């Protein structure tokens, strides 16, 4: 590196700006090169259902609820991972798209407890999904709730196998690899090695898995207890963004407050400091603030 070569600009962040133009439902949409079809849909104001996608994780394109029709492709394509290209022609509301989205939601609803996946209820209505079609004998996930510590619970009866928790625990954020998908097919489950309890596993309780789970399958113990007591009222909760009080990284926290009490902590996925990921102290270390506990 010589004096002449060095600039104070980030060389990685100043590529030659190129954009691509594709057609969505007949209208042209222009996005930056490298953005996905989903990004393009979003910028065109089109609401696309997603389950396994999160902006702070690498797309695994597993749930298939975001599929769209691409001219020239034999099958539908997952908008969350397909990069936008010049000249692409995309349909987001064709009968094929609507049918597959409906079937994905219906399939999930027929095997998994989706009662706390509030987003999904809206899409189920929108696409007319009827999980009852598969009869009362349809196989379900059927798993008991795992309550193994005071910080969070795992209720895999609600798991849609979106892999988000595995990614957050692994190489997309935490690098702890305490959990993995195990087994195969309908019997696949998210699990620690040999299903040992979380405290016996590699888990460091960063709660990043809790933060990304879309269905409540991984849930803060506080939320779980309040739900059990029928006292969980999201509509009454306020959310305040602040900064973690522990180390010097400066992670942003969202404090969810109900009845003047913090009931859970999340982190904004779009924040540049840690993209929604925290450690145990930021995620769970707030209990000392509560008025119910005497401050010693």
């Amino acid at each position: 590196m010589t004096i002449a070569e060095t600039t104070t600009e980030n060389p990685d962040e100043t590529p030659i700006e190129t954009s691509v133009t594709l057609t969505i439902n007949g209208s042209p949409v222009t996005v930056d090169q490298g953005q996905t079809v989903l990004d393009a849909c979003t910028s065109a104001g089109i609401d696309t259902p997603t389950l396994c996608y999160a902006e702070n994780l690498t797309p695994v394109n597993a749930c298939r609820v975001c599929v769209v029709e691409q001219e020239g492709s034999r099958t539908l394509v997952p908008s969350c991972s397909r990069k936008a290209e010049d000249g692409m022609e995309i349909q987001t509301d064709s009968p094929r798209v609507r049918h597959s989205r409906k079937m994905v939601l219906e399939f999930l609803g027929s095997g998994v407890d989706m009662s706390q996946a509030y987003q999904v209820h809206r899409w189920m209505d929108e696409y007319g999904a009827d999980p009852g079609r598969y009869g009362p004998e349809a196989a379900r996930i059927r798993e008991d709730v795992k309550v193994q510590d005071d910080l969070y619970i795992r209720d895999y009866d609600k798991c849609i196998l979106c892999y988000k928790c595995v990614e957050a625990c692994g190489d997309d954020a935490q690098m702890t690899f305490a959990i993995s998908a195990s087994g195969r097919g309908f019997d696949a489950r998210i699990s620690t090695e040999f299903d040992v309890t979380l405290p016996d596993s590699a888990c460091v309780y960063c709660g990043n898995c809790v933060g990304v789970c879309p269905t409540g399958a991984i849930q803060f113990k506080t939320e779980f207890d309040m739900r059990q007591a029928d006292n969980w009222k999201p509509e009454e909760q306020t959310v305040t963004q602040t900064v973690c009080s522990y180390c010097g990284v400066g992670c942003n926290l969202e404090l969810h407050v109900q009845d003047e009490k913090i009931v859970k902590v999340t982190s904004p996925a779009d924040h540049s400091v840690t993209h929604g990921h925290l450690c145990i102290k930021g995620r769970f270390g707030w209990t000392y603030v509560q008025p119910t506990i005497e401050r010693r």
Partner: protein
Amino acid sequence: MQGLQNGASMYAVDPRRTSSAKFADLWLGLELGSDVALANTVANYIVSNDLHNKEFIAHSTTGFDAYVESLSEYTLEHGEALTGVPAAAIAEMATAYATAEKAQILWTLGITEHHNAVDNVLSLCNLALLTGHVGRWGSGLVPLRGQNNVQGGGDMGALPNKLPGFQNITDPEHRGKFEKVYGKEIPAEDGIHLTLMFEAMERGEITAAYVIGENPADSEADIAHARKLLKGLDLLVVQDIFLTRTAELADVVLPASVGWAECDGTVTSSERRVQRVRAAVPPPGLARHDQDILRDLAHLLDYPEWGDPTPEDLWEELRSLSPLHGGMTYDRLEAEGGLQWPCPDLDHPGSPFLHGWLWEPDLGGRAGAPFSPVVAQGPKEQRTEEFPLWMTTGRSLDSYNTGVQSGQMNSPIRYGNALDMNPADAAQLNLVDGETVKVSSPRGSVEMPIRVQPDIPVGLTFTTFHFPELVDINQLTNDAWDKRSGTAEFKAASIRVEKLVTA
């Protein structure tokens, strides 16, 4: 870690093989306190093998020749003898650092909690100057701060010799700016830092203390001594969110509220990023905002000019006084997810790194960055026959400082306070994992369990200081401190471990 996934190499230099060290391509387990020796050996190797950035050195630095001279004794062989790290590994790391296109040196308290902390830091700065790994994207010197707002405290003038924005108390021009706004005179001499304060207490020069949000009765090195001095004060006022051990010694306790959840304001993280904190819940009981307590105190002390400012009013005042923060309005902090200083005006995007000027073709008349020759000294205390083991202290992931905050959470991964020990050392003392032992240093002794840990080298032990109510570990640590930084040597004490005689 994302950097590693993208292909970066990592060399971990630490007496212990920590979790982070396990991600590293190579772990160099240097002898406790041999940091300068290692840095100088690396430097010597870089220079002897002609791997230094000559253009950068000539253009942007001063004092190179004297520095090179100071390195002469740090040959690989000598470095190996001083640090315990094989010469080939030092050479490998030096080559990798010097030849990388981008490289960073990151450190935490392992460098700074030593009696020669400033030397440690300077020795690393020298390396960056030697290779030009500073002031560019992806290269630099990165101290990682243990507390969320140490940086912010310093920014806001919570240093004995600085006004907000790192302006000098002794500079009449800087002082004058503040005096004009405050309408009061500011003492023209530097104040003294915590360690000196304790010495002043000892001499009876300080007889009253107002402690805000610190727990020195648990956290100071050589704790018994510190507590005695606090007890001897005429007046001790403690303002805290907890009834800490320090507060228990106080004459007056002012219950405060939790900054990040019960108050509005700003904090500054390690990367100089100023961010907003916001009140989410009301403070409990009689607890009040720090700012309200101080305001009332000001009014009681007959300073009505204080008025009744909002946090944003206070921030606006700071913006007008501190050029570093001039461009950071609350609105911008909100919209841009925080800003990194210096950010002098509203159009400035903030500064992800410092020292970029070193790379400018014209340094604008400035002399360049100076090399600072430093001599390896090792820890103040040496191991002796009586105290044959090293003890170093640190943190564990789920706990924080003296544990008053994190201790409230029921963490499934907390193993409590234990003294980590190499299996060989444990075997020699005939100890088993989990056994409670007596640990003594020249300053005192405590009883605590041991944890047999292959990741710690022979001769070294490690413990955390998160559980003072269980084990008063700072009874053992050394309060020898660095005259320049005021930090005590938490990282190196000589100890003896003894089997407890069972009754």
